[in-house]
């Protein structure tokens, strides 16, 4: 139990997927304009990440490892993730249409969100069990959601400030992300 909590803390804060591993930057910058949209993307990523880590870990443990097909893990994981994203998309379209519309093109893009694949591969690398993998996925997703919602909050405030012309738009957002990453380095003491 203690190790599971450690895994969540370490993936969510210490090794934050966006701010210290630099995975999933595309959607991190793309969908952080509004807090509401970023929160729903965070939740969608949470759903995909948690389930995909479980399925990927199970596949690895029961199919790939016994057959000695370790080298196939990347391609199989991509298959799993793509299928799961499709399912989440269908689920959202049917049940939560408003969220489906506000996410737009970024929902199918979770497929290519390298954070999702990155977690599945790191789980294998760290030799996690299935349960540990699920918690690692959940922790990573929490870290991602926290980071993107915080950035969205900052960006909503930036819009009201007088930013010097050369920094307007993407540059100031990148600067904010940098400062956030430096702030998150403070968590490294936790491990």
């Amino acid at each position, binding site marked *: 139990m203690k190790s599971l909590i450690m895994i969540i803390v370490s993936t969510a804060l210490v090794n934050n997927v966006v701010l210290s591993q630099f995975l999933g930057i595309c959607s991190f910058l793309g969908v952080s304009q509004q807090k509401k949209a970023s929160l729903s993307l965070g939740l969608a990523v949470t759903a995909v990440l948690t389930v995909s880590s479980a399925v990927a870990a199970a596949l690895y443990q029961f*199919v790939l490892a016994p057959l000695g*097909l370790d080298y196939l893990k990347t391609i199989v994981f991509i*298959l799993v993730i793509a299928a799961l994203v*499709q399912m989440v998309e269908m689920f959202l*379209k049917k049940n939560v249409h408003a969220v489906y519309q506000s*996410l737009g093109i970024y929902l199918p893009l979770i497929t290519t969100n390298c954070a999702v694949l990155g977690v599945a591969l790191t789980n294998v690398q760290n030799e996690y069990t299935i349960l540990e993998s699920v918690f690692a996925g959940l922790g990573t997703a929490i870290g991602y959601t926290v980071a993107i919602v915080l950035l969205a909050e900052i960006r909503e405030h930036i819009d009201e400030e007088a930013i010097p012309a050369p920094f307007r738009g993407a540059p100031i957002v990148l600067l904010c992300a940098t400062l956030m990453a430096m702030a998150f380095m403070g968590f490294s003491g936790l491990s």
Partner: protein
Amino acid sequence: MQTVIISTLVIALVGLVLGLALVTASKKFYVEVDDRVTRVRECLRGSNCGACGYAGCDAVAEAIVKGEARVDACPGNSTENIAKIAAILGKEAIDQDPQCAYVQCAGTCEATKAKAQYVGIDDCRAAVLSGLSFMSCEYGCLGLGSCVKVCPQGAISIKDGIAVVNPRLCVGCGLCAKTCPKGIIGMHDRTTKVAVRCSNKNKGPMVKKVCTAGCIGCGICVKQCEQGAITLENNLSRVDPEKCVGCGKCVEKCPTKSIRFL
């Protein structure tokens, strides 16, 4: 050889299982989609560029069918495709002449001066809420760009301290006119030829004091116009676009050049 067969089989099996799962899911989560949305979607460019202001091509296709967006909402779509979309929806290709926004102020940094420096939130609406006028002309453009932020087409920019609309990019949505706290952005039909670029309702001498480009209500344009298209209202000239033929006599004679071709 065996490795090749095993790995191929494994991938094929995983793919098959996931494929079957997807088929089941798509049946279970099937949503009735308006057939027109799919057909309109096919007539769009499909690059999900986002220039229309919607979250991707699917979203704008739905908006077009619902009537929330114009049939030519997709910028850069070919006229042929726009006609196809119009046919699908049973609409005329162009509903009406699109309108175009124009800024009724010519108070550039040269023409008028700020009487104080504003250091608050970078937004006209916030500046107006502060209750103090920092420009010497209390009617004019503040140049903080609320309209620039709200324009979905990026058609407005701040040049020389005032907002300028690029008529080629403007789609006539009217968001800027609603947003401007000074109410100086007007909408006009594309056929309008001349308009007064000033909103100052004060008498001539008062206007002259604060801006060299303002309408001083002298009435020279009213006398010049052979069509009787220009009238004076609240010390401002007003051009009736239906009577105006665009001869340009008023533009030529205006002493402050506040009446201009669009």
